């Protein structure tokens, strides 16, 4: 039997509620409804799920999806060993067995035929057929499936099928408003509110440029990076350039504008 404890979240992950999402998620979990979290990168989707797993005291299995991922990477496969073959459960199977929350991060990155394997788990059946093994796995009563996806940057080709979408309840996340975000950056890094507010201001500037040469604004995660650097003794200007501007753009005009914004904010 797999060790359930290793998947438990032991320390409370800091999460600042934006509205009533914690209560809503709890309700969804109580009904064991599959959940989809949408939103731009670095706005706190994964953190939220981690926090909820901790709050509910359930193990959490996270799978980062990618293009090369196949169905067997999720479900499991036979491995050859000295005496013949041996079945190895994939993360989704493990989660269904032990009653964990299975979190498929960036689900659209996986190929569409891969995503279909989650279908029987996400409706009333709550089963996972392991055809190769010849087993029909009944999901543990605590099992819940959560997927995340960022509708922004993927292209038209990479969208979820309607049949997949319509199996989930959904949360839409966005970057928190300035005041909240200031609190988050300050609390996460232990910097003072004033510095955090300045960083958030730069972040907001960049978010206004989305669609005008920026695919995605500066995320809360990057703001936290910048604050961490500043706390580590880097000068605010350098830290912001390094953590906020350089990663997100190669466009000279945008870089210039954001650099100017940094100078304007840190007088």
């Amino acid at each position, binding site marked *: 039997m797999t060790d359930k404890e290793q998947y438990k979240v032991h320390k409370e992950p800091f999460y600042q509620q934006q509205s009533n999402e914690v209560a809503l998620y709890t309700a969804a979990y109580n009904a064991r409804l599959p959940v989809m979290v949408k939103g731009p990168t670095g706005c706190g989707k994964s953190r939220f799920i981690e926090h909820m797993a901790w709050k509910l005291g359930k193990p959490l299995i996270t799978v980062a999806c990618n293009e090369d991922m*196949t169905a*067997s990477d999720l479900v499991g496969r036979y491995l050859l060993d000295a005496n013949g073959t041996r079945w190895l459960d994939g993360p989704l199977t493990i989660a269904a067995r032990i009653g964990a929350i299975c979190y498929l991060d960036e689900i659209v990155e996986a190929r569409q035929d891969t995503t279909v394997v989650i279908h029987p788990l996400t409706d009333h059946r709550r089963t996972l057929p392991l055809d190769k093994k010849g087993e029909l796995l009944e999901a543990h009563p605590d099992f819940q499936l959560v997927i995340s996806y960022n509708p922004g940057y993927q292209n038209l080709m990479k969208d979820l099928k309607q049949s997949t979408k319509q199996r989930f309840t959904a949360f839409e996340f966005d970057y928190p408003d300035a005041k909240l975000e200031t609190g988050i950056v300050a609390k996460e890094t232990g910097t003072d509110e004033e510095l955090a507010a300045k960083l958030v201001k730069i972040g907001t500037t960049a978010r*206004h440029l989305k669609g005008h*040469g920026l695919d995605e604004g500066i995320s809360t995660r990057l703001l936290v990076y910048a604050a961490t650097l500043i706390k580590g003794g880097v000068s605010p200007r350098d830290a912001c350039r390094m953590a906020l501007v350089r990663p997100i753009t190669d466009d000279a005009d945008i870089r210039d*504008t954001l650099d100017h*914004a940094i100078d*304007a*904010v*840190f*007088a």
Partner: protein
Amino acid sequence: MAEARTEYEHPLMKGYREQLGCGFPQVAHVFEDCMAEALSSLSKEGINAYLEYARFLCKMGRGVEPVLIFLEEWPSIATTLGESALPAFIAFISLMNKSPNNPAIAPFLQSLAATARRLHSQEQMQDYMDLALAFMTRTTGSVHGIHTTFASPGLPDFFQQSPYLLSQISIDGLKNWVEYGIRNYHDHPDRQRDYFSLQSADSRAVMQRERHGTLLVDNERKLDLYLRGLWQKDAHFVPYSMGFDELRKPVPYFDQLGIRLPDVYDDIHGITGIDRYRAVLAHIVGHKRWTTAIFADNFSPFQRMAIEFFEDSRVEALAIREYPGLRRLFLSLHPKPIEGACNPENTACLRHRLAMLSRALLDPNHGYKDTALNDFVQRFHAVMQQGESCTEEIAELALSYVAKTRRQSDQLAKTYFDDTEVDYRDDNRHMWRFHEESDDEEMFDDHRKIELEEEELKGLPPRHYPEWDYSSQTYRPDWVSVYEALHPKGKGSDIDKLLAKHGALAKRLKRMLDLLKPQDKVRVRYQEEGSELDLDVALRSLIDFKSGASPDPRINMSHKTSGRDIAVMLLLDLSESLNEKVAGSEQTILELSQEAVSLLAWAVDKLGDPLAIAGFHSNTRHDVRYLHIKGYSEKWDDEVKGRLAAVEAQYSTRMGAAMRHAAHYLENQKAEKKLMLILTDGEPADVDTKDERMLIEDARRAVTELDQKGIYTYCINLDPKADEYVSDIFGKQYTVIDNIQSLPERLPQLFIALTK
């Protein structure tokens, strides 16, 4: 009069006058004043040289003007450049005097003082004269071998414009500007004059290119991002020229049509041009955000000025609250009036007081001692402490400031202006509302203007394209105007008839097309699940497995059919020469081209590749016509066939511009491969271009540009003699079709071969 003035004369002055020995009465009028200035600024040797050369100019036989100007201007030039510069000037003037260009001497001398102020040093001045000399020799005309008969048409204008030009561009820039003018208008006196008097559009454009400083056009996107990112505003920028209005410098402003900004900013006080633009925008956005218009009717001009200063300071304070870094920027651009610099006894000092106050409101370390000023700075900050305040409230404060500090002398005509211009601020026209609308005549013009605009809107506005000038290896900016229009419609059934005529050929083509249709399979390897086992990978995996490493399970492969992803642009040369009959046939080249294009369009339509067709011809660079026949989104239907049936051939072939214009459509196609086919019957040529190579080189350049944009160009040339030039333009990407009668067959075949 002259006699009356000479009644008494200082003996010294008399001596000088004799030394000059110039009999013009006009000289006598000004001589004493000029001499007084010369004596105060020139050395003894300088005076001698001054009189000696003035004498030379007087005896030169070109009238009184040269000597008059020289007498008046030289002392000030000598102070800027040094007295030793004189012989060089005189050498230059005598050169001009010996050429047919002597009328240019007066303009040269007239502009000399201003030019000297711009150039500062003798070396630069020498450069300038060398440039003028080269200009003179190259543009002085000789007809039928008679040496230097006609004066250079552009030279006087050039001298007149040079102070202004040098204020905008460096001497090197001036060289390029002159070079361009000489090269392009060498043999066209009127155009040359237009160019060198800065009248013609390209003259200004070339100057613009050579300018120093930060140009608005180059940075519009940056500023747009600045507004959007930092201020969440979206505005249209309208540039105005700083140069042409020497007396009254225009000031930035904004209205419904957009924000007016200077076309160029130089760096000053360590602030880059782009930051100066940002300062202007930050100030203007401040107004947009926080200023509400108030009624102006009840205020005196002084009160209004004060209100404007206070309001400007208020919005800046608020902007700084938002972005503290702006303070540094504003401080470096805001003038720092010196306390006590304005004498209130004889000068109107209100501007000075307000500028000082404005500085003090911005600068916490202003260091001004004036009690009223400090008092109001405190009251201002106290008001701002409460919140954002508002225009009315700040106007109250401004009015009490005016009342408190009013002086009788504020009414004086002599106003103190030094250090009071804050050049990043707008003119505040948006701040004022008037109870009474103006009854100026302009009010009645509005209606008429609208009518005019409507008329102009018919047909698309021209697009301008540069043209490559191979002799200088530069682009001529906005040289060609391309007018795009829908081709008039004819009868679509004509094309169907043509297709029917080539029925047999069409059948053969169809067979070839079927072969071309996407059906070739492509192997997709490294699949975990697939239709076949990929032996190579499978073996590798087995070896991995046997040796104890984890095997790669992706040992299968599958197949998929590859699609065609190619967008095609067919550009037809519709110049006059297409009307010629083909040897040994009753048909004209145009008719044959029509047939060929119909077949090709039919074939491409069958293949399903996106195809656009356009024709072009030109009548000088001002009128290149680009005729739209088929767009990418249009089907091969009667509409399109009708347009193709109606094509007519006229005018000339300016290929480069048409290619560039066609490319901007093709560029926007989302296809892996982009192909531009150009069907032409001769070399690029136009009536306004004498140099045959010019348009050939331009077309070649266009091919390179297109190549950089990922567009493959291919030329189908119907001129049997094309080999001489076509490879120059298209490299190896061309076919010459000698037997034009075979064109309908060859064109689709060529296309198929190209895209197989």
